[in-house]
């Protein structure tokens, strides 16, 4: 078949092979499926139909072709037959050669059996021989092993018997490490046989070990030993199953105790520094204290570092201890800060604390002591700033309130002025001191403070801001404007108390101006000079010191207080006038005999005001020459003069015509502006008060109805008031006008307005003046 493959593939060979393979193929249909029985090629398919093929052939082909086809087909058939024959032959010969090979194999296998049996025998004999050797040697080997074990045991026993002496030797040579190693090695044996065979041995070695333990403990507790040695001792003790924890606790307790001692010492330092710094000569004891304290802190730090090495798990406890110490330090600082405590002292204390902290930080950086103390220092400083300002506020209000006391107890020459000066000084000096004080904090190069520098300057500025706010509140509290209770007190208390209060208001007003004009600029300057940086930082929680706002606040406060003062003063006059005008029956008034006493009271009140104002306020600049200031034209003042003459002259004329004249004068006169802006001068304040009082007088008059005598009484009173008022007052024109207005109002409200005859008027006034001079000869 292989030979056939080599034959060039011609049509014939190919077809034959196809046929053959189809013959052998298991599924003939696969080969023949595509063939169509309707074509001439279908001759090779299984569905070949001979009749159909024939018909097809006959139909398609002519005779020649059919003949040729016939020849071809016959030849093909012959070929196929021979091929078939050859195939059968080939297959047969192959079968025969296979049968031969099988026969040969059968004869070869027969000899092998005997060889295999021989091999088995030989192996068996080898095995038996090795067994023999093994059994003969076994006994000897057993013996050797036993002997070896005994020897080991003996060596151990020997070691144990030697242990006490060995330990003794170790103790002598202080080789505690070896001793502990030996003992711990022997320990299992002692545990197993300690009660029986090795009793003595065990006891002896335990004694030795206890000595060792004691020595180790001693070593551990003794501060003279090196830290390494102590650590070793601690480790050894731990190996000896000694209760190290209790040791640790004991040690830490000791440490805590020493801490308490330290704390006490800081207290001492602060006390000492407070005492010694006050007289300003005790720097030496201070430093002694500090060095002593530093020594003990150093010891503490060493102890901490030692314990940290010795007991690694005690770190948390140590951290807590250190932090406790710092906390306690700052507690004492805060305690101190609550009182009056200068920055210098604070600085000393902070420096001490900071060195402590740094020392401790070296050995115990995990405690974050610097950060911790930074925070605490921040709080302490903040508190210090707050309390400093608080004390400043107290100082100032004390200075102010001294006014109440002093003027009640002793009649000083000018208590208001004293109070003003005192409070001014308290304020400015106090603020400067505070700034100087805080300046020290900034200048110091203490690590703690360097980090807080920005904060400090911010706090100081904030402190000033808050301080001025508080001061503002305090002012209004003192002036009685905010709280109704104090005002009630003023009303119910005697005239004296009320008077003092009024003076105080004036002082406060002037002080506000002082703050606005002098104190705040100076403080701002000072802050700018000595607290740089803080202002540059943007502050979220509200601005630090804003001098502009404060100035504005105090300017308005000054104005309000000044008005309040004038109000208080005029209110008193008002009450006086109210009584004067509501009590008598004006319609049935008797003829005027003398100037009514309310004039005295009014002038008295005015005198008081003037004296208060003179103490506090500056004098105006030559006001008398510019009397027409309020109405802004010289014409009216001239007209006033004219009117003065007129009224003087008209006293001789008939009364009605005089009234007409005043009316006319009023018509042609420029409107006098009565209520001008109050200026901060003696004259302006007094004038304003007088104007307000006279206006009130006019209003009271307008509410009444008078008979002739009543009108004449008013006329007399007003006429009398004219001279003293002009003397005290800057704006004569306005006062004159108002006085005239009162008379006009009275005449309008009079049923029968006939004025007093001038001679009578004069006489009555002279009489009153004479009486006045008699009473108090000093005053004109």
């Amino acid at each position, binding site marked *: 078949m292989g030979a056939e493959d080599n034959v060039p593939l011609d049509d014939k060979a190919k077809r034959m092979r196809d046929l053959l393979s189809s013959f052998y193929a298991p599924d003939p249909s696969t080969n023949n499926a595509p063939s169509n029985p309707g074509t001439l090629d279908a001759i090779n398919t299984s569905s070949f139909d001979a009749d159909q093929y024939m018909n097809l052939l006959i139909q398609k082909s002519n005779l020649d072709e059919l003949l040729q086809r016939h020849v071809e087909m016959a030849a093909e058939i012959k070929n196929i037959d021979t091929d078939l024959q050859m195939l059968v032959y080939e297959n047969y010969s192959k079968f025969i050669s296979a049968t031969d090979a099988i026969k040969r194999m059968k004869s070869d296998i027969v000899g092998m059996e005997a060889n295999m049996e021989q091999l088995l025998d030989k192996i068996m004999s080898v095995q038996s021989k090795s067994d023999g050797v093994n059994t003969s040697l076994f006994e000897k080997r057993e013996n050797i092993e036993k002997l070896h074990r005994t020897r080991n045991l003996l060596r151990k026993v020997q070691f144990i018997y030697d242990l006490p002496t060995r330990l003794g030797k170790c103790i002598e040579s202080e080789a505690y490490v070896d001793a502990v190693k030996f003992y711990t090695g022997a320990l299992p044996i002692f545990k197993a046989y300690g009660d029986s065979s090795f009793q003595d041995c065990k006891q002896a070695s335990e004694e030795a070990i206890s000595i060792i333990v004691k020595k180790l403990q001693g070593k551990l507790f003794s501060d003279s030993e090196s830290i390494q040695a102590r650590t070793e001792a601690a480790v050894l003790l731990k190996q000896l199953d000694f209760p190290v924890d209790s040791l640790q606790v004991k040690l830490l307790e000791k440490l805590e105790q020493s801490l308490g001692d330290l704390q006490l010492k800081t207290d001492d330092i602060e006390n000492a520094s407070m005492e010694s710094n006050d007289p300003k000569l005790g720097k030496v004891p201070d430093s002694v204290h500090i060095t002593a304290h530093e020594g003990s802190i150093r010891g503490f730090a060493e102890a901490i570092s030692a314990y940290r090495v010795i007991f690694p798990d005690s770190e948390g406890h140590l951290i807590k201890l250190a932090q406790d110490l710092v906390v306690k330090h700052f507690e004492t600082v805060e305690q101190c800060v609550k009182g009056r405590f200068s920055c210098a002292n604070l600085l000393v204390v902070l420096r001490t604390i900071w060195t402590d902290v740094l020392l401790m930080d070296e050995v115990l950086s995990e405690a974050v002591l610097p950060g911790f103390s930074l925070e605490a220092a921040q709080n302490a400083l903040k508190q210090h700033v707050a309390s400093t300002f608080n004390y400043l506020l107290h100082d100032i209000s004390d200075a102010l309130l001294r006014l109440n006391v002093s003027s009640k107890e002793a009649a000083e020459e000018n208590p208001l002025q004293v109070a003003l000066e005192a409070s001014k000084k308290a304020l400015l000096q106090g603020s400067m001191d505070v700034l100087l004080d805080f300046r020290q904090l900034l200048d110091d190069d203490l690590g703690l403070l360097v980090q807080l520098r920005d904060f400090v300057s911010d706090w100081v500025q904030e402190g000033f801001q808050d301080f001025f*706010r508080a001061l*503002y*509140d305090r002012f209004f509290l003192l002036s009685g404007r905010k709280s*109704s209770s104090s005002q009630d007190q003023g*009303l119910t208390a005697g005239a004296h108390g009320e008077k003092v209060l009024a003076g105080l208001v004036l002082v406060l007003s002037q002080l506000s101006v002082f703050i606005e004009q002098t104190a705040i600029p100076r403080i701002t300057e000072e802050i700018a000079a000595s607290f740089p940086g803080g202002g540059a930082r943007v502050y979220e929680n509200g601005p630090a010191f804003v001098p502009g*706002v404060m100035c*504005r*606040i105090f300017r*308005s406060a000054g104005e309000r207080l000044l008005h309040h003062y004038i*109000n208080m003063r*005029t*209110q008193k006059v*008002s009450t006086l006038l109210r009584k004067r005008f*509501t009590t008598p*029956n*004006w*319609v*049935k008034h008797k003829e005027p005999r003398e100037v009514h006493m309310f004039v005295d009271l009014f002038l008295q009140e005015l005198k008081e005001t003037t004296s208060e104002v003179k103490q506090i306020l500056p004098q105006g600049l030559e006001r008398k020459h510019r009397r027409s200031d309020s109405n802004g034209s010289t014409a009216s003042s001239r007209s006033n003069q004219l009117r003065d003459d007129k009224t003087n002259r008209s006293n001789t004329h008939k009364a009605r015509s005089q009234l007409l004249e005043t009316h006319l004068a009023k018509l042609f006169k420029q*409107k006098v502006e*009565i*209520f001008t802006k109050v200026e901060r001068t003696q004259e302006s304040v007094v004038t304003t008060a007088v104007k*307000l009082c006279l*206006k*009130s007088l006019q*209003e009271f008059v*307008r509410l009444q*109805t008078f*008979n*002739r005598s009543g009108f004449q009484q008013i006329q007399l009173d007003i006429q009398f008031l004219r001279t003293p008022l002009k003397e005290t007052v800057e704006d004569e024109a306005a006062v004159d006008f108002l006085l005239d207005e009162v008379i006009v109002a009275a005449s*309008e*409200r*009079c*049923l*029968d307005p006939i004025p007093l005859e001038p001679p009578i008027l004069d006489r009555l006034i002279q009489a009153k003046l004479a009486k006045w001079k008699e009473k108090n000869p000093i005053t004109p």
Partner: protein
Amino acid sequence: MQGGSSGIGYGLKYQARCISDVKADTDHTSFLTGTLSLREENEVHLIRLSSGGTELICEGLFSHPNEIWDLASCPFDQRIFSTVFSTGSLFDIDLPFYGLKMETGLIVFFAGEGESYGAAIWQIPELYGQLNSPQLERIASLDAHTRKINCVLWWPSGRHDKLISIDDENLFLWTLDCSKKTAQVQSKQTSGMLHYLSGGAWDPHDINAVATTCESSVQFWDLRTMKKTNAVERAHIRNANYDMKNNHILVTAEDESGIHIWDLRKPKSPVKELPGHTHWTWAVTCNPEYDGLILSAGTDSSVNLWLAPTSAEEDATSESIVESPAQQAGPLLNSYSDYEDSVYGLAWSSREPWTFASLSYDGRVVVESVKPFLSRK
């Protein structure tokens, strides 16, 4: 000075203290004012704002027998009003003058110890325009008083047949019958010793609540029981006015210490404080329409317009320091200072609530509009 040019002026012949808005006149903005002249014939003027709002026209001029200290228009009948007047002294005046007064049909002369006071309800005659010299018709006289009468109050919110009159010591509640022309005392209460009453205000929200001012306090009365219900301790209150819009809000004017706004539920301390005037603050009145708009008149010859809403800023009573100067300046919307004399009379128009009339002592009525300031709100 700023508002000086915008005002519309009207001159009375004599001095005057009181002006009242004619609330019942819904067709015109009109005011009633009466003169205060001791020795001349006094007049009541009915003034109307012209339809263009550019001038004040005298609608009616009636003679009144005595000087008028208080005048109030009836809130439900435009022809009715009340006056409080004084007659001067019985003993000192000339006889003919006295006789004239008797002729004009005067009402009450009770014997005070000197000058005498009276109060009456008047009706303007119906055809007053056509009459030559129209006479006021007296409906009733409130003649139970023995002391100086201070004011007569109508209930401001509508028709109510009761009247209140206040004298120095007593509070009277009257029942008024306009058709029968009678007024009878329904009840009376004495304020108690040492409380000299000076004026009062009737709560527009509560027909039974009246506030009276006296020397040391504002007292509140329940008219059903005539008992004191409450008091605000405050000295020298000149004038009090209820807020028409907000219940419980009372505004007071004090001689020296300015204007205070009170929440009557918290009488201990004022809700708000306004600086008031340079001299006394004489009168204060709340706008009937715009919340927190307050007018005050003072003896410093000026009228101040304030904006101080209470409802919105109740929490802001505890002012901080920084704000307080600003707050003090803030509420003052305008100061009308173009007056020659003290301003005593002040009235908002209820018909045109952006208009008010003011009356200075020299008899000059000025009607101003606050419209330019309303837009700023």
